[in-house]
């Protein structure tokens, strides 16, 4: 069910559901993903990884591996430039290059099990694997720490001796596992708590989880004899991959071309590079293209999960349910290198509500785990699990309906977030109203051991830079060149905005994702930004084309361009008219090709809110949770292609269900992950979820010509809290630790029994 508060009637293309442009290639197996790239003479690279969670590397001896027949090249950290601390902006977040370099190939020290230590290229992947076994690494194991609070304790094993705490710009004088302390405050927090009628404080924990994209990381590099490096890779951002690779190799950006392949899922985990510059170095050493593909266990152990967390929240409210004060303490593990997801966690913890007096303290914490990376609304889900669970408890204690309590406090236009910004027009209230009016919420839930929960979620839409160009073809179609790698159908949602602007059909725009030499700079596919920002670029390409086409029409009509009117793709003047296609056919006679161009960097990020309703049943004997019914309500601003908006809402919700119920990194007492495979890292299967109902709310974004808000990330934020609330209704147990797996819930249920 797509309910709409906007007015789609004025649009011909927007709001329709055309078949995606890359669809046929993807259902026939023809689409070229990273691992489908075939280059003559290519050899295969593999990486040796640390068996220890924390150890000094005493020595690496690669001589036996080099002698194995079939081995073409061997590389270790010593082959790469020793980078000094330098911060590089990767679009969605910044990175210290020295850390990035040490993360992708260890220097002197390994900091987590699975940390890359050396790499081999050989004529086939099996030989490369055999060669890895011949590399002798002498380690001196060190004590390790994986849980965030343990890592913060005095006397915890120290990961880096040169990292000190930076607390809002003030640097401490001794090394620490806490690189960053963030503090936000507004109003008079202590006073407000003292005056509150009710104050509750609770603690929450979440385990490390992985994005779980089905396609492992893959990269193919060819370092040509002329010194030019070409990379075929699976990345969320070809330009950021180019920048990272060039920096890690200390070569000019212009010497690197990144060819983005089709990408088999990313969710934030395919922004940082892991293989690209290693493949490049091996290619330079052996003079052949080198292809590297991770195994699934390498993906779990050697790429970036999202942080495990400890969150403590305190809320104060009046008897009538007005929030008056909030305080939050968040500690997120960053993994082995600084720069986890604590920043957005702090910004999001209270982002759904107007809380006049609030204080947030956040800690980025090093631990012997893979360096964390973004995962769909990075940092927000952990924070929302805490805050939204407490809203449910508060509603219960005050005897107020949980939607009503949220409505009384909902963030709206003019609400100031604790980190500073004030919201423009946002659609949170509308999602709550739609939830209240939904058939799901209104229908009674019958049967024992069942419960219904509700929770809301928030995520930003970042703007960032996008470029695009449109070439008008003589048959009236437009070839659209864009730089945003397409993970979930954005070619089509971007093309539709150009089609709408030009008054032609979606199928009459042919979108292509170009390589880094074929299109202007474009930031990553992330931050719920592509349909918004690259869509904006496509719109501006459309305006540019329309302006030029108007001039051409004027030539044909022999009139002043100002006299030409363009309506629904029809160019009219002096009673004469030409369709876009007819006019396109005359470009050769009116001055040659028409190319529209745009480069945008929109100001003012937008905001996406959603509300989820879930019904669960809990087996009273085994504590297994079954999701009976699930509804996602979200403000999409304007749904360009409703099917893919629904798809984002459904997919995000199911990832959130996995996070809530079963997904977790399980570590042994030596800090080694015990479950680096899809059998024991339990992502939902088709049999674990019901149909996911969707209600699209449309409160147009004032910062976009078609009102688009990004929709990709918000849907993962609410599920854990919504499910925990439903489990409470079914069992009487308030689960405050993720995942709410059967053994954990069973233990809590058993403890509660008299």
């Amino acid at each position, binding site marked *: 069910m797509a309910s709409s508060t906007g007015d789609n009637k004025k649009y011909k293309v927007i709001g329709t559901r055309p078949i995606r442009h890359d669809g046929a290639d993807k259902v026939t197996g023809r689409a070229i993903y990273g691992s489908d790239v075939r280059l003559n003479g290519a050899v295969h690279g593999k990486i040796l990884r640390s068996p220890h969670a924390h150890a000094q590397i005493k020595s690496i001896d690669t001589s036996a591996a080099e002698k194995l027949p079939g081995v073409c090249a061997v590389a270790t950290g010593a082959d790469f430039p020793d980078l000094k601390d330098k911060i590089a902006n990767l679009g969605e977040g910044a990175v210290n290059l020295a850390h990035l370099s040490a993360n992708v190939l260890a220097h002197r020290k390994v900091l987590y099990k699975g940390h890359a230590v050396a790499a081999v290229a050989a004529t086939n992947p099996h030989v490369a694997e055999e060669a890895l076994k011949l590399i002798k690494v002498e380690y001196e194991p060190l004590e390790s720490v994986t849980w965030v609070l343990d890592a913060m304790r005095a006397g915890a094993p120290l990961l880096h001796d040169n990292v000190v705490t930076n607390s809002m710009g003030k640097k401490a004088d001794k090394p620490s596992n806490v690189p960053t302390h963030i503090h936000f405050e507004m109003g008079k927090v202590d006073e407000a708590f003292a005056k509150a009628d009710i104050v509750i404080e609770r603690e929450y924990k979440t385990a490390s989880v992985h994005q779980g994209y089905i396609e492992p990381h893959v990269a193919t590099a060819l370092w040509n004899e002329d010194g030019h490096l070409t990379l075929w890779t699976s990345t969320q951002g070809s330009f950021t991959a180019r920048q990272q690779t060039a920096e890690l190799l200390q070569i000019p950006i212009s010497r690197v071309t990144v060819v983005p392949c089709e990408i088999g899922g990313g969710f934030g985990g395919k922004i940082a590079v892991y293989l690209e510059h290693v493949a490049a170095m091996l290619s330079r050493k052996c003079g052949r293209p080198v292809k590297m593909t991770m195994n699934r266990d390498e993906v779990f152990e050697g790429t970036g999960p999202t942080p495990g967390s400890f969150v403590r929240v305190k809320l104060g409210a009046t008897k009538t349910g007005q929030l008056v004060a909030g305080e939050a303490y968040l500690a997120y593990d960053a993994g082995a290198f600084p720069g986890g997801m604590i920043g957005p966690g702090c910004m999001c913890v209270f982002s759904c509500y107007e809380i006049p007096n609030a204080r947030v303290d956040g800690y980025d914490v090093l631990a012997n785990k893979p360096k964390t990376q973004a995962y769909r609304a990075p940092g927000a889900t952990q924070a929302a699990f805490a805050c939204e669970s407490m809203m449910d408890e508060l509603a219960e204690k005050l005897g107020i309906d949980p939607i009503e309590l949220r409505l009384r406090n909902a963030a709206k236009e003019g609400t100031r977030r604790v980190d500073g910004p004030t919201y423009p027009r946002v659609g949170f209230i509308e999602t709550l109203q739609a939830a209240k009016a939904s058939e799901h919420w209104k229908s009674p839930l019958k049967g024992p051991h069942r419960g219904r929960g509700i929770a809301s979620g928030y995520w930003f839409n970042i703007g960032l830079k996008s470029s695009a160009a449109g070439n008008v073809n003589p048959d009236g179609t437009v070839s659209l060149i864009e730089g945003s790698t397409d993970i979930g159908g954005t070619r089509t949602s971007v093309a539709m905005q150009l089609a709408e602007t030009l008054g032609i059909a979606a199928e009459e725009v042919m979108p292509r994702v170009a390589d880094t030499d074929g299109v202007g700079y474009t930031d990553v596919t992330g931050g719920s930004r592509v349909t918004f920002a690259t869509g904006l670029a496509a719109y501006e390409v459309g305006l540019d084309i329309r302006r030029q086409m108007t001039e051409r029409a004027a030539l044909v009509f022999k009139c002043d361009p100002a006299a030409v009117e363009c309506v629904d793709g029809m160019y009219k003047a002096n009673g004469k008219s030409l369709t876009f296609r007819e006019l396109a056919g005359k470009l050769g006679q009116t001055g040659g090709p028409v190319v529209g161009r745009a480069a945008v960097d929109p100001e003012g990020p937008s905001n996406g809110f959603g509300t989820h309703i879930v019904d669960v049943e809990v087996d009273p004997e085994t504590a297994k949770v079954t999701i009976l019914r699930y509804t996602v309500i979200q403000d999409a601003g304007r749904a360009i292609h409703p099917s893919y908006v629904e798809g984002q809402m459904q997919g995000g919700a199911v990832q959130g269900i996995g996070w809530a119920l079963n997904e977790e990194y399980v570590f042994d007492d030596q800090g080694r992950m015990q*479950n680096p495979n899809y059998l024991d890292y339990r992502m939902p*299967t088709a049999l674990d979820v019901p149909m996911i109902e969707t209600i699209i709310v449309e409160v147009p974004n004032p910062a976009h010509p078609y009102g688009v808000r990004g929709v990709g990330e918000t849907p993962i934020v609410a599920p854990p809290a919504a499910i925990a609330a439903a489990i409470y209704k079914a069992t009487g147990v308030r689960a405050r630790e993720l995942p709410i797996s059967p053994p954990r819930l069973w233990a809590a249920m058993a403890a509660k029994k008299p």
Partner: protein
Amino acid sequence: MKDFEYQTATTVDEAVSLLAARGERARVLTGGTDLIVQLREGLREADLVVDIKKIPELMELSYSPRSGLKLGAAVPCYRIYDDPEISRAYAALADSARIIGGWQIQSRASIGGNLCNSSPAADSIPSLIVYDVICHLAGPQGRRTVRVADFCTAPGRNVLGRGEILATLEFPPIKKNSGASYLRFIPRNEMDIAVVGAASWLQLDAAGERIEKARVALAAVAPTPLPLTAVSEWLVGKPATSETFAAAGDMASLAVKPISDKRGTVEYRKHLSGVLTKRTLVIAADRARGASAPAH
């Protein structure tokens, strides 16, 4: 993966002589769904892999009410549940065959392979135990039989000697008024390794009220799949009621000595042993009284 030699045997004797010549360095390939993963991950090594799927005896699946079921060691799981007569007669076996991996796995994986892999958590072994299956082995010294309850000796280990293979599994004919069931607990609904697995078999009196014979076996609660002999004996003569089954479940909880690992804790596994024992007994009794097995 280290390379190896691949041979296809077309007779049992050929397989045995190929395997005997290489001993520990040779491995038997049936469905490959365990072996290929183990070779790839370096958990096992082999110089020679002997494919036994081309041996007719090992691909035999024959059933008659009088002689029982003969299940060749390499018969893939899907052939069991695709046969309505066999799934009805040996419902617990079909229960197991339907949940070993996903459909893709069941196209390849065999019950014989599941047994020879000898995992403590194997989904088929408790069912084989409660049906009191006889394993027919063939080796350099000729043929011998072993009761399935005695087959596994430790995690990943069993009674097979050098060059010896499992040829067929012989299921006794189905007794009147009997029924069986297998259930496992997993956190998801598919694609998981049992946290605990339980199989129960019951023979009731003609009225369907009293238990004449019983066998219960569990998986993932001991180093090998575990027959619950005391519980099975206790059930004999008891009324086939929910009270009896609940009491048997309580006994099962106390009888097992599981470990804590990434899939579950000692306490949770003990508890699940009771729950699943009770639940499989209820289903077994229903089936003994003539209820047909659900599709899944």
